[in-house]
């Protein structure tokens, strides 16, 4: 071949065509492939759209739970702070012991006649006679007994001291004792009294106080 022979035009065109075809093929292939991707992406987009609420729900639920967790954490922190503050204040203040429960008032004890009689007797024995009052009071008592006590009743002892009088009597019948004790408890008798009687033996013991005064307090 000589330099004067030009390249064959047909060969250059073939190369170009080949290149163009290749490019076209590649482009087409690219388009096809891209379309597949688009289709796939489209599918994904559809399913995402369908489960988009689920996804959103999931995301929303996560956000809600997260918010709740954050809220709980904040509350726990607040409680911890309150406890800490309370402890701090308690440490700063002196501890005041709880007040002891009020003592329960004891139930009233039923009076024991024998015990009371013994106590009044002890009280009476400690007293000395008030001569300005005791003799006159004893006479007044005797007059009352003579008027009110039934026939046959006997005065064994009658004595007044500083603010008490003691009377011991014997009665023939139990009914006579009851009648006499009733008269002592009536408005006819002025003094405060303690009376112990025994219908079986007919014996009566009476302590009376000075007019207007109660009998001495026996205490505990």
């Amino acid at each position, binding site marked *: 071949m000589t330099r004067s022979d030009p390249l064959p035009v047909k060969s250059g065109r073939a190369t170009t065509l080949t290149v163009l075809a290749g490019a076209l093929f590649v482009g087409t292939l690219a388009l096809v492939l891209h379309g597949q991707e688009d289709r796939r992406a489209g599918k994904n987009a559809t399913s995402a759209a369908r489960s988009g609420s689920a996804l959103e729900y999931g995301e929303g639920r996560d956000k809600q739970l997260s918010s709740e967790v954050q809220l709980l954490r904040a509350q726990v922190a607040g409680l911890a702070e309150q406890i800490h503050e309370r402890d701090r204040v308690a440490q700063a203040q002196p501890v005041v012991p709880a007040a002891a429960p009020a003592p329960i008032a004891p139930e009233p004890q039923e009076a024991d006649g024998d015990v009371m009689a013994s106590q009044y007797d002890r009280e009476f024995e400690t007293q000395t006679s008030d001569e300005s009052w005791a003799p006159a009071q004893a006479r007044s008592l005797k007059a009352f007994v003579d008027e009110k006590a039934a026939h046959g009743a006997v005065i064994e002892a009658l004595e007044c001291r500083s603010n008490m009088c003691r009377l011991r009597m014997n009665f023939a019948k139990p009914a006579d004792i009851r009648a006499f004790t009733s008269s002592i408890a009536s408005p006819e008798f002025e003094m405060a009294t303690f009376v112990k009687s025994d219908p079986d033996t007919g014996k009566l013991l009476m302590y009376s106080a000075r007019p207007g*005064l109660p009998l001495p307090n026996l205490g505990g």
Partner: protein
Amino acid sequence: MSKRTRCALGGIIVAGSFFGATAASAGVTTYPGTLCMQLGVDTRDMTTRYSDSQVTTFYGALTVVCPIAQQGGNVLSASVVVKKWFSSANVKCRLTVRNDFQTISASTPLVSTTAAVGTQTLNLGPLPTFFANGTKTITCSIPASMFDNSGELFSYTVSEG
């Protein structure tokens, strides 16, 4: 609450008042004077006088016994509200407690009204003697008078504890 129930409750309340303790507070009970029972009329004081065509009749003195419901405690205080119409006609009262066999008794001093006419309160005082199954009573004397009554007993109040 039905009408029937209201009527029943009202009846119970009225009956309770009649039998009578209207408790003002725990341990304190006020009784109407109508619960007091007359022991008898003492006719020894009855006098009839004819003078200048004037006839004066004195009624006998009365003794009344007022029951106290047993509440299971010592009598911390007791009082009686009375009314007297004449300065010389004094009402006198005292409190007595007895055991159930009536073999042991204790009484407060006798307390009398003053000369003042009108309503008075007699304070009978405490009585630290307690019998679980015994009785508590207030006994009062209403004096003689030329009229139907010379004194009235309105109510009596007892505090137990």
